[in-house]
């Protein structure tokens, strides 16, 4: 949550806005949702059919904290990983999908 100032809103006021690591806080309609980011894709060329099957078809649908892929299609076009609470729509940290998750 890199935009919450001492006086400014934090928590639920930020919902439906997404912080793009490149472009800053933007309205969610600039983004495109692309699903679960908690799973790791099997290595390219992996012949493990079961692993691919699970990756492509099996998803948890957690109520609460979740990590999702979003693309800033109407901005820098970067794919992000976003923390979002699926029960309250509260959004949290985000980082570029091409980079490691922050600690």
């Amino acid at each position: 949550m890199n935009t919450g100032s001492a006086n400014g809103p934090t928590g639920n006021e930020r919902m439906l806005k997404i912080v793009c690591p490149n472009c800053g806080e933007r309205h969610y309609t600039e983004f495109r949702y692309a699903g679960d980011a908690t799973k790791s894709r099997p290595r390219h060329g992996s012949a493990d059919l079961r692993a691919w099957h699970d990756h492509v078809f099996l998803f948890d649908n957690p109520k609460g904290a979740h990590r999702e892929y979003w693309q800033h299609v109407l901005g820098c076009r970067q794919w992000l990983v976003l923390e979002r609470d699926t029960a309250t729509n509260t959004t949290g940290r985000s980082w570029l999908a091409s980079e490691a998750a922050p600690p």
Partner: protein
Amino acid sequence: MTRRPHRVAEGGRIARDRPLSFTLEGRTFSGFAGDTLASALLANGLTLIGRSFKYHRPRGFVAAGCEEPNGLVTLGETGRTTPNIAATMTELHDGLCARRQNGGPSVDFDLMAINSWLAPLLGAGFYYKTFMGPRRGSWMFYEPFIRRAAGLGRAVHERDPDRYETRYEFADVLVIGAGAAGLAAASAAGRSGARVLLVEQDSLLGGQLLSRHLKDRCETWRGAAVAAVAACPNIRVLPRTTAFGLYDGNMVGLLTRYAPGQPQSARGEAREVVTTLCAKSIVFATGAIERPLVFGDNDRPGVMLASAAQTYLNRYAVSLGQRIVVATNNDSAWSSAAELARSGAAVTIVDQRAEVAAPLLELARQGGIAVELASVVTRAFGRRRVKGARLAALAGGAERTIDCDLLCMSGGWSCTVHLTSHTGIKPTYRAAIDSFVPGALAAGHFGAGAVMGSFGLAQGILEGNFAGAQAARHAGFALGAPEPDPDHVQVLPDEPYNLEIARGAAGKMRGKAFVDFQSDVTTDDVTNAQQEGFESVEHLKRYTTLGMGTDQGKTSNINAIGLISTLRGQAIAAAGTTTFRPPFTPVSIGALVGRNIGHHFRPIRRSPLHDWHASNGAAFIEAGPWLRAWYYRWAGDTVASAYIKEMHAVRSAVGISDISTLGKIDVQGPDAAEFLNRVYVNGFAKLPIGKARYGVMLNDDATVLDDGTTARFSETRYFLTTTTAQAGEVMSHLEFLHQTAWPELQVQFLSVTDEWAGMSVAGPKARAVLALAMPDHDFSDATLPHMGCRELIYEGGALRVLRLSFSGELAFELYVPADRGTGLWELLLTRGAELGIRPYGLEALASLRIEKGHVAGLELDHRNTLDDLGLGRMAGRDKVYVGRELRERSELKDPQRWSLVGIEGLEPDARLRGGAILFANADPIHGHGRGYITSVTWSTVLGRFIALGLYQGGLAHQNEEIICAFPLKNEIVRARIVSPVFIDEQGERMRV
């Protein structure tokens, strides 16, 4: 209809110097500025406002605000016609034109009133139980007739000429409701310096204060509070604005109706605006709604909420009765009764409580009001107008009837918890006031006044002050907000509000006792539902339609829940409420859609050659977001004749077609080759510079995502094309794979679709046309062989030539920067004229490829695999590519999968149709068949209709006869399964 003027000589908040004229079903009436349609009609003595939904019983106004269940009218004419508008919320304006609803031939003389004699048959669930036979689906036959007999107003098909807008707005503090609590909250928040938005659905600020007598000392406070809000520069007030929904992210939907009677659209202004507002904090000051009592025939015109009668009298100067009975179970109706008595009417209070507070009795004595304690009204008399009330003492004994011309009722007040419940927070029941109050409010949400169950005026103001200051602090404005002057508040009355839950009269009732007026639900219906097992309030609602009208049960909710709880012998708190959902009051679809209508529904993309097409006889067709040249007038006046001539031009000489809409992606980087090799099923690692290759990419689940050609112009530069429809999808797909899966690859993508104009020159004479047009360049087969590509210079700029063929003829794709497209296009047409070059449109383009069996968007529907489309051999056996592993699933290897076939019509004159269902010859023509036709064309080469389609088992059935059924037109055509490549199977024509 007897009419009697009911306007009081003086008083009220109407402008008597501004008379207005309006019509109801063509008859002219008059009123004043400041009236609502309801108050003006009542002032004119009109009491019958409509017929009820199901029984067609005569109905009058019950309320004076947004909760009105009966008084719905259709406003406006032709395209401006708006049905189901509450007359109580409609500000009067000159020339307003209204019609009552649900009466045939008229509301005053309604033939369907027969339903009220059939009422014993028409209980909850009647229609569903009765209209079941004689066979399955019969309900579909009966339903339109039943819906016509029931129902409300009708929408029209004409276009609405008015303008609607949507917009976004932001505020630090949003205050919803400008009653006493809301005004206090807005002022308190405003003093902190926060940007405050105060919204009020009414045209005036003050809420219930507006229903007090003008000489009441509360009016002084209201005036000062409204002035304070107006004087504060950081408070914005939006009257006529309903906060209709609360959503995640502190987002609130606001509907603003602009002042009536002005020709807004003539000035280009909107009639209604939907604002999506994001606020840092929100104060709910939405007040409370009085609810009816449930007794026999409590729906007769002239039976009205006590607060509504007070509002009509004090705000609109309309006196509705001379002999008034006020039936109640709580204190608030006593002050309403006192106000009514002051107008000179003879008033009787019937209170179910055996004891009431001494000040109330004193109030009644001063007003000359007769008091009947421990008594209830069990029935109303009169048909089109109430004439009397049956009184029963709860202790028993003889009932008696007293005459009256207005029967007021007050069953207590229900807190307006709708908005606070929209995000899923369940309201909680508070027995002391027999009402639900908001559940635990979210952080940043505050409540004040009646909505929180605090019905006293001074209490509401104190709470408003507190909530406003809290809300400002939450929004980051900690300073300011001095406490209000306590003396100022203490001069205001803080009437106590006591109530005894109204359940007493159930056993003594006669006649139909309505719980929900708008949906025509009676106590009997609720009882039946309970007996049939529909006990939960959610089931009760769906079975009886209780609370499902346009008023969403604002007056009926608590009474219904109370009744079902009594029947079940459980506490109301255990029964709970039904779910409150947006919108709070109806929102017109026009306002939600705003300007996104007609051509503005979505953006239209046009090719850089669009203007040439338009001025050279092209007919256009929408293809995804694009407007594309469909066919040209040179070839015919209808598409059916034109595309065949255009195809013939290409096959026999040469044609030129606009392909600028293809998705184009510039792929660059040292790892570009490796990247493309991973996403395409076929090999791209060894694609030589100066060559192009057709490629197919898959989704992870092994369905085909897209196809296209990619040309290599240097070691690190590729020019990738996609189908028109999938351009955005493919771009995102490539970016996703690169950024999430393979960030180590050094490659970049840029969409250059709009940067390049593209055109395809196709036909046996294509090379000759290029040679004539650009004699300096060499387009020979040796320099530019099949699947070759070159970067040339045209007029000092780039020209990319790819020798590719979609049509199967010798063909060249030419790409130049978008602004040079028209120049090149015209050059080719001019120089090629002697060779007979002709432009051809999308229909011919799409048909030429069918003859060649090339798949396109209609076949690439994200359900088909490589093998389904006959492209399985493209994938290298040992090559690794996206989607390879899941291609190995056994389900996808089933030989009975629907796969690509060619289809040839066997009846020369019978046309094949896209979407036709395919059956084997021996099959009964029923059900989903064994496949369907995806694309159809007339083949100029073969002289018959041909098609591509998907068929169970695919080409294993080659040469079998099948049946193409098109049930929409009752057509059955014989056909044969053939190879999908109809002409030039070896591809010799394009290699010359």
